[in-house]
């Protein structure tokens, strides 16, 4: 009876329908030496999908710097592992769930959060912070409101139930995401550095154990869907979106950590994309062993499921483990206590084959090494992105009112407060959130310690589009700067590469450029990549998204009580600008919002200067010389001081001296490597800066309830807050 499962005739058309090219079909036939069965075809299809094989990106990903004394485990495992001292490790990764979130925003986003948390706790870490980087289409697009609402509710619904605080992230809008939003979720977990769990299977004859929720038919071919462009029929793919059950995941988390406290686990791997297939193949491949699975033993949610469906299902909240022999009952007890399924579904073998059986009969048999090693890797043709026009600052007209322009900018969709979003996330559960969302970087304390982790996610896709190399560099530098602005020492990053169709040389060129820029910045800033994810084919009807390589970084601060934020705290303090303002106006927020021009070269990051200025800032914070600190990014000096004033509910005056740039350029230019400080110790800071060769200038004073730009151009804080806080809630309250 079992072979009925494979009664379906395998034709070239069916193979093509599985996303396998003619060339790949040849390789497949050579590996198998025969026509694959239907089940085997499904396995090749998902393993060789872009999502699982990284076939377009692998060649370039290998060039990223991934090492450093702080790195315990770089890319290749479920998540990256970094040493944070005291025998502890931070385990973290960011992952996209773009395609499912566009099709079904609540479940797509929720399962994205669930998936990334599993990647972290499968390595033995308790998740202690979540972040998310979201990109939506134009606010005017008819679907945007619905997508924002669903994605935010989905992220909150899952993370809140798990009891993991969502402490940071970013949300922006751009028409290029109209048909293809980005939902990138990041989780940071905490583990003991000597108790990290990996996926490598070992021990011939050891039991292979399935735990968690039952397997259903949801998400079949999710990985393949995530590897194709969208078209008009994408909505029909809704059944391939998985459904999340955060309660089951919470139980799975607690049960796994309880079992991990003992020593019965040899290896463990979560079932994410391509479910049972990728987890079992990964474990066998890493351990250079074979795995035999008894599919009829898999806990099933519905009757009549086939081996094909079981191997390809992306049902959530499941894990695969190899246990030490004879430890099954001890493990079973823990999972039964947590009311989760537990089943021995196979064994480790020495064949290096993945053998699938149903009631003892073989229904699939694939040699693992070629399935993994011969998976396609393309060095896709690429062309460098043409150089953008240089914008001469002198050609950018001054606005009729500086404060008017400022108000318009800080109330624009991308700059407006995202409080409406992060108040829907429990950002306080666990009681260790020291710097909440809305600042440069969030800070969470390590339980029982004074130290903490600072974390931020960053990318300016407009910069990346204009110049992928500089934009890639800038994304890394910006993240490093945000972490630095809290006083923390940046440690490592995860990257989430969201791009269009890699088969088009200009898109591939964006990818290659971003990788090159990121590499340069990671090396210069000692900020290696320890994990990451690639999401390609983010296109609808041939229109690609802005290239969006999101960087999620973490840093460590020895004493969270010393961590800094941007809120102005004391009147009559000096505002000191660190770094040099040359007047870069290309690709700036000012150009987009005030002049309606999205063009020009992005600002260049001088990495040596970046590092020098950042190290200087960290020393000042550590020495207790500043009372507020904020990095300068979109909207330059004027938007930075506004953020600080609004956060502290305290006004400020910027004295505009003739810098030869024009006031609007001095205020809104986006030169890199700059910070704004509030301090009662300006003299000391200027002295130290001079000694270190760091540009530092007093640019204003704190006090009052208005923001004053130069002589008398003032705007009340209340008016700025209304513009800044008002946009998103007002937008969401409108009828679609």
């Amino acid at each position: 009876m079992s072979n009925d499962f494979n009664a379906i005739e395998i034709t070239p058309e069916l193979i093509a329908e599985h996303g396998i090219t003619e060339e790949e079909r040849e390789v497949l036939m050579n590996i198998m030496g025969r026509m694959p069965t239907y089940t085997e075809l499904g396995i090749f299809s998902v393993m060789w999908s872009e999502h699982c094989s990284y076939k377009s990106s692998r060649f370039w990903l290998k060039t990223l710097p991934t090492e450093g004394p702080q790195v315990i485990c770089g890319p290749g495992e479920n998540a990256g592992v970094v040493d944070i001292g005291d025998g502890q490790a931070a385990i973290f990764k960011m992952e996209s769930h773009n395609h499912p979130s566009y099709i079904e925003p609540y479940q797509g986003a929720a399962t994205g959060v669930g998936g990334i948390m599993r990647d972290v706790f499968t390595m033995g870490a308790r998740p202690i912070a979540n972040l998310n980087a979201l990109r939506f289409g134009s606010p005017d697009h008819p679907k945007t409101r619905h997508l924002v609402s669903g994605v935010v509710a989905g992220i909150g619904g899952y993370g809140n139930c798990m009891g993991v605080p969502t402490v940071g992230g970013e949300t922006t809008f751009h028409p290029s995401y109209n048909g293809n939003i980005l939902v990138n979720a990041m989780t940071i977990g905490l583990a003991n550095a000597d108790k990290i769990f990996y996926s490598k299977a070992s021990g011939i004859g050891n039991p292979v154990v399935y735990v968690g929720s039952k397997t259903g038919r949801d998400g079949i071919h999710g990985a393949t869907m995530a590897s194709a462009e969208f078209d008009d029929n994408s909505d029909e793919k809704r059944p391939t979106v998985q459904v999340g059950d955060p309660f089951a995941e919470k139980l799975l988390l607690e049960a796994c950590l309880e079992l991990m406290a003992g020593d019965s686990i040899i290896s463990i791997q979560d079932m994410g994309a391509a479910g049972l297939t990728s987890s079992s193949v990964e474990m066998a491949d890493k351990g250079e062993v074979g795995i035999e699975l008894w599919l009829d033993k898999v806990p099933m949610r519905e009757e009549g499921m086939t081996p094909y469906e079981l191997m390809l299902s992306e049902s959530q909240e499941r894990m695969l483990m190899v246990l030490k022999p004879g430890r099954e009952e001890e493990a079973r007890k823990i999972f039964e206590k947590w009311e989760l399924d537990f089943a021995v579904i196979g064994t480790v073998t020495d064949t290096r084959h993945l053998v699938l059986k149903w009631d003892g009969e073989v229904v699939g048999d694939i040699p693992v090494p070629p399935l993994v090693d011969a998976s396609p890797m393309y060095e896709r043709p690429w062309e460098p992105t043409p150089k953008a026009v240089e914008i001469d600052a002198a050609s950018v007209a001054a606005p009729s009112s500086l404060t008017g322009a400022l108000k318009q900018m800080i109330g624009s969709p991308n700059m407006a407060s995202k409080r409406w979003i992060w108040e829907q996330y429990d950002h306080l559960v666990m009681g260790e959130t020291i710097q909440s969302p809305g600042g440069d970087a969030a800070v969470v304390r390590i339980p029982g310690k004074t130290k903490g982790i600072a974390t931020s996610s960053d990318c300016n896709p407009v910069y990346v589009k204009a110049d992928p190399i500089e934009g890639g560099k800038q994304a890394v530098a910006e993240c490093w700067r945000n972490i630095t602005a809290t006083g923390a020492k940046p440690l490592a990053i995860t990257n989430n590469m969201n791009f269009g169709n890699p088969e088009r040389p200009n898109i591939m060129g964006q990818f290659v450029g971003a990788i090159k820029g990121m590499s340069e910045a990671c090396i210069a800033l000692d900020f290696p990549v320890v994990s990451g994810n690639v999401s390609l084919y983010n296109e609808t009807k041939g229109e690609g998204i802005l290239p969006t390589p999101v960087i999620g970084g973490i840093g460590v601060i020895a004493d969270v009580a010393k961590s800094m934020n941007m809120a102005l705290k004391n009147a009559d303090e000096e505002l000191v600008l660190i770094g040099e303002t040359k007047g870069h106006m290309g690709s700036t927020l000012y150009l987009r919002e005030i002049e309606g021009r999205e063009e020009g070269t992005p600002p260049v990051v001088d990495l040596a200067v970046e590092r020098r200025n950042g190290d200087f800032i960290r020393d000042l914070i550590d020495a207790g010389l500043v009372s507020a600190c904020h990095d300068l990014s979109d909207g330059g000096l004027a938007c930075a001081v506004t953020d600080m004033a609004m956060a502290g509910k305290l006004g400020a005056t910027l004295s505009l001296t003739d810098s030869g740039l024009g006031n609007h350029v001095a205020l809104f230019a986006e030169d890199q490597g700059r910070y704004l400080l509030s301090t009662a110790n300006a003299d000391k800071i200027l002295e130290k800066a001079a000694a270190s060769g760091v540009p530092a200038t007093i640019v204003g004073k704190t006090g009052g309830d208005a923001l004053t730009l130069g002589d008398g151009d003032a705007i009340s804080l209340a008016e700025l807050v209304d513009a800044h806080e008002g946009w998103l809630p007002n937008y969401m309250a409108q009828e679609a």
Partner: protein
Amino acid sequence: MKSAVILFPGTNRENDAIAALEQASGSKPQLVWHGETELPKVDLIMIPGGFSYGDYLRSGAMAGKSPVMRAVADQAKAGVSIIGVCNGFQILTETHLLPGALMRNAHLKFICKRAALKIENAETRFTSKYDAGQVVKYPVAHHDGNYFADSETLDRLEGEGRVALRYCDDDGVVAPETNLNGSQRNIAGILNEKGNVLGMMPHPENAIDPLHGGIDGRGLFSSMVEALS
């Protein structure tokens, strides 16, 4: 003060509760799993926040039927002090240890923010360290915190001094604009008839460290320690 913390599958603020109880009393609370039918002898039972059993039915409805809650109800009748925070409050209404119900927030969204609260009754074992009318700030983090009871019950609660806390503004003004979830009469926390059971949506356990941005929550725990030691 000896205390116990009840754990359900899906409870997620237990460590926050344990930290607050330990800070105030100097000793760690005992942890009690939902399947237990007997409780240790303690002065205070705390039911912390979370999503018991996923809250897939009504929030707190499944937990309200759990074995351990029958034991908690017995203890409540015997006069032991019981505090339920957030999901704990929802569970206490589901077991009818407290009147009324907690519905979905009026704006239908989860809300997490620091909230200003007016101490309405400072003569209880939970609030004696505060002054009546004092404004305190605790965070809220809930989806279903919209307190509802019929007007007869509400009148009775008010008449008997059983409204413990209300949502207000920084100056203590209780108004529709300061009602963050649609609760009847801005109610954030209530007491039972005997005054030994308190249910509240806000989280005093997340306001016990200067680095939380405030320590207003400590007063609640130190009140209990003073009354129950």
